[in-house]
């Protein structure tokens, strides 16, 4: 019995990393501009679609920079056309605007690139590998493509961390995140910083889209993985990059374990028509955390004054 549990745990962790990647995009934007960017899922889809269709007509090493350029252009368009006119509006209005952007991108992506299933071929191995076959009957199954995704994700996080800690732009960005007005008053150009953040979020979306796309094929449904990232966000906190990573791992492992272990128990106990509890388990798990720590696992403590 231990074998399957460990296996599920590992599988969950690896899936969780992919959740973290999507959540990371949310966090970057929320941290810097206070926008709850619901278009992140649409951006993942759009980036993956662009890459998939471009790589059909050109080699990957040209398609990839081109896609990055597209994502930067997209960030610029969003900053210029949507965010700038809506400056100083309430959070919920900005949230709504990103929902509009998400709608637009869904339609635009399908118009330009089509709505079939497309392939991104990163040459990742597809067949599973088995380890510890002597310890557990049947061994422990590991999906190598997810392992590679995990490594790439880890690299990405390190790069981002360095970018934010060491570079000038990174420091400016943290200043903006702390206090818009103060940052502006010391001469940090807010618009440029936002553009920067959206571009970085676009690139993170591209990486997430590549990983998911290589695994599942690039199709409209990819936009819906954004919903999977939301419990990660509340668990990890909207403003914490390590929170997004750790939150993703906890959610990924938690929901898979719940589905595999708790699911059959619930089905038997309540005579349910099938399991599928992972759909809400992540949210309930996150909710439990929230009740203890309302600002999320790594969120900043909110101090309120009247």
């Amino acid at each position: 019995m231990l074998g399957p549990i460990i296996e599920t745990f590992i599988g969950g962790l690896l899936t969780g990393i992919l959740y973290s990647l999507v959540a990371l995009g949310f966090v970057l934007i929320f941290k810097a501009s206070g926008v709850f960017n619901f278009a992140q899922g649409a951006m993942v889809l759009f980036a993956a679609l662009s890459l998939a269709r471009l790589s059909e007509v050109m080699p990957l090493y040209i398609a990839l920079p081109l896609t990055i350029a597209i994502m930067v252009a997209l960030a610029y368009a969003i900053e210029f056309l949507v965010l700038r006119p809506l400056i100083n509006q309430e959070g919920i209005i900005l949230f709504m605007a990103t929902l509009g952007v998400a709608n637009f991108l869904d339609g635009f992506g399908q118009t330009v690139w089509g709505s079939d299933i497309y392939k991104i071929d990163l040459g990742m191995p597809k067949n599973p590998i088995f380890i510890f076959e002597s310890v557990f009957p049947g061994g422990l199954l590991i999906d190598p493509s997810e392992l590679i995704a995990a490594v790439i994700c880890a690299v990405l996080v390190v790069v981002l961390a360095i970018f934010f800690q060491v570079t000038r732009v990174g420091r400016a960005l943290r200043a903006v995140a702390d206090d818009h007005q103060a940052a502006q008053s010391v001469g940090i150009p807010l618009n440029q910083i936002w553009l920067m953040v959206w571009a970085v979020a676009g690139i993170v979306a591209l990486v997430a889209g590549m990983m998911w796309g290589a695994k599942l094929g690039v199709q409209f449904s990819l936009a819906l993985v954004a919903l999977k990232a939301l419990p990660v966000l509340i668990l990890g906190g909207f403003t914490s990059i390590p929170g997004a990573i750790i939150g993703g791992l906890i959610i990924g492992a938690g929901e898979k374990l719940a589905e595999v272990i708790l699911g059959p128990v619930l089905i038997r106990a309540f005579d349910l028509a099938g399991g599928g509890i992972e759909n809400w388990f992540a949210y309930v798990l996150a909710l439990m955390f929230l009740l203890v720590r309302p600002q999320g696992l790594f969120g900043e403590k909110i101090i309120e004054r009247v």
Partner: protein
Amino acid sequence: MFYREAGQFKTTYNADQAIFPISQDRWFVTAVVLFAFLGVPLLAGQYLFTEVLIPVLILAIAAIGLNILTGYCGQLSLGTGGFMAVGAYAAYNLALRLPELNIIVVFLLAGVMAMLVGLLFGLPSLRIKGFYLAVATLASQFFLEWAFARVKWFTNYAPSGSVAVGKIEFFGFPIETPMQKYLFVLTLVVVFALVAKNLVRSRIGRMWMATRDMDIAAEIIGIRPLTAKLSAFAISSFYIGVAGALWGFLRLGAWEPLAFDINRSFQVLFMIIIGGLGSILGSFLGAAFIVLTPIFLNQLPSWLGIPLSTAAISHIEFMVFGALIVFFLIIEPHGLARLWAIGKEKLRLWPFPY
């Protein structure tokens, strides 16, 4: 010139407290309601009833419900679809298991059911707020959707998990034709809107608004957040539950949990934001906008005689819809209701500039 309150004096406190203090407003609203009851049934065709008017009215009830919670009490919720599902399935089970119940009682009890569930899922709001709460309400959305798909009793052990309602009667009158359904829904909408309007003007409404504007300050001046927030959740869920029951019974006729999925939640949220947060009128305008725009965009090319493929039409619909949302937010972030108010201000002077 035509829209002037000059000469209208308020001589009593009651007059000062009227819903529509200006007589032009009063006449206008009365005329609209009368037209909706008497004129529309004569003019509208079946498509207009089933695909435009009924959905708009039912979703307007849901939007009012969500507006109470989000617009008036400031608690962002993405669980609307789930609460609508509670209403729909509660009504289905009540109608199925207690067939002697009057349909209006069924709908109200369905609302009460949704209210109880809403109270339960409103509890976290005492601890968390803002977008954290929004995502937390998603827990209710996904859990409820799942529960109605899995627990067989809710669907009367239907093998496919899809439920269908039988014929509906209201005190012996059948509610079958689109026009009958429309009139039934319209009556409910008028009553519900009136109740909501009065609620938000009353003590409880001011409690909600104080909590929305600054919950700590509200607490300090003696408003209990528990009562304020939970009452908002309860009443909001009641409205949404009734809307869900109506949606299932009068709009769909047969449905599965997918009819109340997360997209429904977003749809209703769109409505109140586009329509105007904290405005009953805005709920109607928003519902009309969100229901009509996609239908309109979808059919526009064929009216204009532009030959476009089906796929292109759908994609353009998506794009234009998204762009329109952003556009409306930019020109007026406070929604269509605010545009309406600005228009009225203009009308006071028009056509003379001073």
